């Protein structure tokens, strides 16, 4: 199985192929020699590639994974052909609609939009205060505000529904 790899949003020219449980990594058709050892059960990995050592840490949850290496965070997306097609189709379908949830608990300081408003991608929807800081919650895509599930002054938990956006008619 062949994988498509994006790191920090950029496709990288590496061929990673899963052959019956064995991972083959090659660059420009040249196979890369590597050794992979897990240091602990917490994501620390000792990786040696072409005799260079890398102290890698893999972290994340819910398929939002990133790798930390020498102090930098690398957001890595790996998809096989089937996943890639499925993701593309899903993105197309979900355009401009859906429920927006909070990923952190906090208090709603201010609602910036009302039901019926048409919002652009990146427009502020509400201000959420968490850890003594005010955070702007932005629209992930354009759409019309169909429902609002919270009000100013209300405490919301992680995962609480905040808004429902509906797609704009063509």
């Amino acid at each position: 199985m062949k994988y498509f790899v994006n790191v920090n949003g950029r496709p990288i020219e590496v061929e990673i192929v899963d052959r019956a449980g064995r991972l083959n990594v090659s660059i420009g058709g040249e196979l890369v020699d590597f050794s992979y050892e897990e240091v602990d059960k917490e994501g620390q990995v000792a990786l040696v590639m072409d005799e260079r050592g890398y102290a890698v840490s893999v972290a994340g949850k819910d398929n939002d994974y990133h790798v930390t290496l020498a102090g930098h965070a690398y957001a890595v997306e790996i998809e096989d052909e089937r996943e890639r097609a499925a993701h593309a189709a899903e993105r197309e379908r979900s355009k401009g609609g859906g429920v927006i949830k909070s990923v952190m608990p906090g208090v709603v300081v201010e609602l910036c939009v009302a039901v019926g408003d048409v919002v652009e991608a990146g427009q502020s929807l509400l201000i959420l205060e968490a850890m003594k800081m005010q955070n702007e919650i932005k629209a992930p895509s354009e759409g019309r505000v169909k429902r609002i599930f919270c009000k100013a002054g209300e405490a919301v938990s992680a995962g609480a529904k905040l808004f429902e956006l509906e797609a704009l008619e063509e």
Partner: protein
Amino acid sequence: MFQRILIANRGEIALRVIRTAREQGIETVAVYSEADACALHTRLADQAIALGGHLPSESYLDMDKILAAAKKTGAEAIHPGYGFLAENATFARRVVEAGLTWIGPPPDAISQMGDKIVSRQIMKAANVPMVPGMTEPAADAKVARAAADEMGYPVMLKAAAGGGGKGIRIVHEPSEIESAFRTASGEALAGFGDGRMYVERYLVNTRHIEIQVMFDAHGNGVHFGERECSMQRRHQKLVEECPSPAVSEAMREAMGAAALRAGAAVNYEGAGTVEFLASGEEFFFLEMNTRLQVEHPVTEMVTGVDLVWEQLRVAAGEELGYGQDAIQMTGHSIEVRLNAEDPSNNFLPSVGTVGNIRIPGGPWVRFDSGIYPNMEVGLNYDPMLGKLIVWAPDRKQAIARMRRSLEELNIGGVRTSAVAGLAVMNDAGFQAGEFHTQYLENMNMTEPAGERDKVVAAATAMRRWKQANRSALAPRDADRLGWIARGRVGASVYPHIAGSTAGFTREGTRS
């Protein structure tokens, strides 16, 4: 000297006080909330008293419970750390009234410095340079406008009782002042029960430089030089250093003398920090923090003085025993704060469970932190997990040492500001020492593309790790759908991860 002290705090600062006390043979009493039953300060103190509760108001802010714990354990003194009750004059008074020693300044000094208008009046009388502005509260917006017109715009409209960015407005034009006065005053009244406002000139591209002072109870005081704290964002400091690349010997002497006048004017005792706004060689009094500060280690590294020990000594009534000449600054120290936040996603708070920890070592590297494996990082407490501090003979080597240490450090399970610290170390403006308090806000915190071999290593490790941990990732299909359906927050600040989960999840498209 005390035989036993109680530390009314948690996290790295509780640990910091415990460490010095242990070295000096003083017994320590920790207090802990329900959430901190496994915390390091709970485990490393000689005695630990449960306060119960998860919220600060039920534990570290509950004066009755803390005083009861001191009484029960026979502690003779209370160290408040920073935050929580450290600058609460009422608590300081109650400690003294209970017959205990307050390891901090006299309660009156706390309340005088806590009121911005009162402190401005005292500082003016003590001949401490101040940002040009009013020393009396403005009765209404009209008075504020007249004062602002005279000073010239932009001006800063500030609440007497404000703090943490609340009750403050920058006003660029006369027409803005009325609504700014109304909202800022309302904010201060709601937040602090005091709506008094005053106006001062707003200085642009200034630095935030502070002086560490220490006074004993016998009228002796010294300063320990300055700390450069201009690398901040929304009034939250990220990188601090000692000395400041912008302070000459003459300026240091002038600032130190002004800071000592400021402390003497309120009969200060113990450790304190006088904060100044600096512009070129000019400096202006901002406020005095009547406690030990988060960034005190950089001063310790450069002067070789254990500030917590000095706090304990003068609180116990000892004389300082040395003068200003004894304070020598050697080399350069830098601190990076490790906050649970995601710099690449607009510094949004990050919560989670701490996974793997890899702590840097080597010469002149110091890690002050309360972090431990499986620690829950939530929203109830300050997001600062710890601090990384280095020392080197000069600033250039200190930057190189901090960069090396940040590359070694790894905290799994939550995102931290370590990546932002690394970005600062690699920034040309920071390296040249040319920055101001707005500098960090305008830095690009997008992670660079990365060197090719590291990118390949990251991708390989990730793919291989997923293969090895497939069973641990059992609900893969569901996750995948969730991943697909996710929107993102702040597309403009997080453009490099398509469909990432940066801030918000989105559903409703699952079929």
